[in-house]
């Protein structure tokens, strides 16, 4: 995966580059929106990581310019503005995902991989298959080894998101935003218990399944 990082703070940029290098992700760094925009035409580029408050043109303005130029490459906004309203404004402004600083390195990697995968064919297929689990997107039904899984609409969405990101870590915040459409973090451990419930349904009558908790990071759908 190739990343274009537009970030004016050198220390943060160095930290991000180090985190991503450890995951074999190549990073190209630009310190201003103007310099970054000049490099967005590169076909090898997969995801853009953009700061919001940049000297000169703001990150949000840069995204608007990018979209109006017809460049649809996924953008992750990495910003010091972390309130729910900023997230909404960023997402409304055309960014694909929003992560507030300071962030967990694993969260950044997970978000980037999710954005990268979204551009691949797998995410848009009408039937998602993961081992013996089958998900029919249009009919909104799920089966394991041919046996119907009785999932609620939200559980279906949850499993779909996990299958779209199979093998990758998905964080609580990613699930809140993409499955429950919430831009804030409830105090109650709602995500964990919903994941536990989904795991029970996946394992009911089959034994161990594939939904593992990655301590302190999130969840991952592994091979069943």
């Amino acid at each position: 995966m190739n990343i274009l990082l537009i970030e004016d703070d050198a220390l943060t940029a160095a930290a991000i580059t180090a985190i991503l290098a450890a995951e074999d992700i190549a990073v190209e760094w630009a310190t201003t929106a103007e310099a970054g925009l000049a490099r967005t035409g590169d076909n090898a580029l997969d995801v853009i990581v953009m700061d919001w408050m940049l000297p000169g043109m703001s990150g949000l303005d840069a995204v608007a310019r990018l979209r109006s130029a017809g460049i649809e490459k996924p953008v992750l906004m990495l910003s010091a503005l972390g309130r729910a309203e900023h997230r909404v404004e960023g997402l409304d402004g055309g960014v694909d995902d929003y992560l507030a600083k300071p962030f967990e390195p694993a969260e950044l990697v997970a978000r980037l991989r999710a954005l990268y995968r979204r551009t691949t064919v797998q995410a848009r297929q009408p039937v998602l298959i993961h081992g013996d689990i089958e998900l029919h997107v249009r009919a909104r039904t799920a089966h394991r080894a041919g046996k119907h899984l009785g999932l609620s609409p939200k559980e279906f969405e949850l499993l779909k998101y996990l299958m779209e990101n199979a093998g990758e870590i998905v964080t609580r915040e990613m699930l809140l935003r993409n499955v429950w459409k919430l831009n804030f973090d409830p105090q109650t451990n709602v995500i964990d218990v919903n994941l536990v419930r989904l795991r029970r349904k996946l394992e009911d009558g089959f034994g161990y399944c594939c939904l593992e908790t990655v301590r302190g990071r999130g969840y991952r759908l592994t091979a069943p």
Partner: protein
Amino acid sequence: MAAGNLTLNSIAVRQALLSTLVTLVAVVFLAIAASFAIERTMRADMQQTIDTDIVGLADIMVNGGEAELLLRIADRTALVPGATPLAYYGLTDRHGMRLGGNLQMPPNLDASHSQAAEIRLGDDRILLRATRLRGGLTLVVGRSLRGVEALQRRLQVDFLGVGIIALLATLVAGFAVAARLRGRVERLSQTFSRFERGDLAARSDTASGRDELVQLAGHVNAHLDWTARLLSAQREISDNIAHELRTPLVHLDTRLLSAIGHNSDETVALELHLARSNIRSIVSLFDALLDLAVAEAGGITANISSFDLSETAADLAELYAASAEEAGLDFKARITPGVTMRGEVMAMTRLVANLLDNAFKYVPSGSKVRLIVADGPRLVVEDNGTGIAAADAEQIFLRFRRVAAPETGHGLGLALVKIIAARHGLSARVEDARPGARFIVEAQDAATRKGVS
């Protein structure tokens, strides 16, 4: 249509009706005044005619004697024939015996002082004057006021006609002005509404004249400019605080991460992880405080829309159901379908989530928690836990106030509930559910009707 609701509540309509009433009073007053003026003028004229006539007849008496006088009186009465003459004459001798004239019963007037009076003769009102002539004769000359009355009646009919036309004209003109005025006031009021809904560029038209409303629109625009500047400045300040505070924390976090990477001592690693967790607590506290400040100041209101509160609550109920089961709580939602409201979906979602978080955090395992959504909208989260002391009922909605000491949270959740509710024209309060606590969010007027604030 802007000027569609012309009811008695409208100032413009009341003004139109008042103008009509004033016109009515003015017309009536004018009619009465004109009637009095006519009567006064005509009576004075008649009195003068009577006096001139008396002088003339007295001359005749002096020059021609009694016989000549009677002849001239007969001539005068013959000039106005008919049963109801306009001129009256009477001549009596010193004993009061009638000698001539068309007055059958001469009035009892003091002729020696030439007394004048008005008498009624049948339907006729007559002005009279009596005077003493040579030889003790008494001459009475009078004029009927019938002419005056006829003129007054005609004037009344004329005034009635003119009055009706004036009233109708005032009414039509008044309502036309009222409709126009109301339309302009409505447009002014719409400017405020658009601004409140987040259109910070909404301004009133000030190019259509220089009257009072245009001047008011100018003041409104100046005020909106000022408010927009304040909102923008507040936004900038809060963004700068967030940015300037987070950047050193991000650096600190980065250095801690680097230290963790280079460290092999487990005790040190634990401390470093704790330090990172403290950084997250600081950031989340500042975010929560900024959320409160922005929500309280009005903040961004561009995301206002009509939405289904029942659906929002049902989604959250489903999300929290698993947590409730896990925590051994009996959690049920009783949601009336199709309860809609205007507002910020995410803010209202947060309000419901904060109330549920609050209930889940404080009730012991085995308790009941209920989420109720009804028309109004009325939103209730109640439990049968330990409840909240009456003395704390107001306090718990203040910042950093907690009824107990929980392990998590900043004590800002209920403060945010109160502020979000207020921004949506709703009140938030807690009452004793005997046992437990009942948090109620409902329309402010509904709460006022029940005598609570």
